[in-house]
């Protein structure tokens, strides 16, 4: 009897989102530039919000995006930029 490979659409969407999140999480560790890490981390946050929406709790998903993308990642960027560091390949401290 032939095996019929069929997959529900919500499972497919979940796997796509999970792949995006895993790639983002790996890129957070791999990227040399710390601001890029925050950008990838934000991609993971958005993926978590999308999975909440997929699971049927839209409110939690929207609050996830409002709090994590809108506030937490901006806070991280502020923390990175306001502390002493080299500016993007320069040798001068800005």
């Amino acid at each position: 009897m032939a095996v019929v490979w069929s997959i529900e659409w919500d499972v497919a969407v979940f796997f796509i989102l999970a792949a995006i999140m895993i790639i983002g999480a790996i890129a957070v560790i791999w990227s040399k530039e710390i601001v890029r890490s925050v950008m990838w981390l934000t991609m993971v946050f958005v993926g978590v919000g999308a999975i909440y929406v997929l699971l049927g709790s839209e409110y939690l998903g929207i609050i996830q995006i409002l709090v994590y993308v809108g506030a937490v990642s901006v806070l991280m960027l502020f923390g990175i930029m306001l502390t002493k560091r080299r500016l993007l390949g320069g040798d001068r401290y800005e």
Partner: protein
Amino acid sequence: MYLDLWGLVGGLVHWLMVDIVGTILDWLHLYALADWLGSPGVLQIVTILVVALIILIVGMLVSITLIWQERKMLGRFMDRVGTQVGPFGLFQNFADAFKVLVKEYIVPNAADRLIYPLAPILIIGVSMAMFVTIPYSQGFYMSDSDLSVILTLAMFGVIPFAVLLGGWASNNKYTLIGGMRAAAQTCAYEVPLLLSVASVVVLTGSLSLNDVVAYQQENVWMVVPLIIGFLVFIISMISEIERVPFDLPEAEAELVEGWGTEYGGMRFGLIMMSEYARAFVGSSLVALLFLGGWAGPTFGIIPEGLWFLLKMFLVFTIFIWARAALPRVRTDQILHICWKRLLPLAAINLFIAVFFKTMGWF
């Protein structure tokens, strides 16, 4: 009177896909393809795409009209004519758009190659996505979500992140300062903005824009009991869309062109466009939450959407007026205004809303 967008587009798509294309395919003996095109899932997806396209085009057209209104009215405020191409200068923006479109695409040498092109995409994408939640009338909307108010404000919350990334990726001290200012300002002003929205939600008891407008049609426009919240919301919204009394992120006299200095060509055009798209969403939020949305005497023939657009353009006129009349706020004052003036006012407004609700007056 209103246009039922989903019903109209659904009927049109069904007619096109089943009655016309389906018949042609049947005549060509491609029965399987005709059945697939006529299946409910495919019809639904095509309907959603067409509705999204219509909402996008209408939103862009309204935003372009806002640019025209601003240039024309600012011209009158400054005792000059304003735009002149076409009737009433209506085609000037299209001419400018074409000029911007054919310009060369330049990436600065020191810019971050990944984030520099990504930031305008993020900004324009989020700004255009906000069109989804704005209902023009009872039938003309893309999504009738139960959470449309908070969804729109969540999208406003993504903007500072993208602006900060864009300002950093350009690798220029003026863009970085502009991005910092933009992020600090928009993050801070979101607090009184959300508090004044909370007072509206307390009184109307719903997070859906359609329900909020329906409540205002039955009872009273929210501007009457919540006049303080209305003023706080307008001031915070001007700051949120970075317009003139609060346009520190792109103060021309200090920061060349703010966080968008290094963006040229069509990227500059898209950033300008997204600013006016956000201005459209912001002024329509004022109209929907406080001024009764599409409520107004229709006499059976006037479309409801016309009332909504009229109120939206009136709110934008206030923004233009403020731009023509007021000087820019100083950097150290901008957060004082937010935390020491607007936040207590928004809190008082929330108390008033709760008081009215418990007394059962509205």
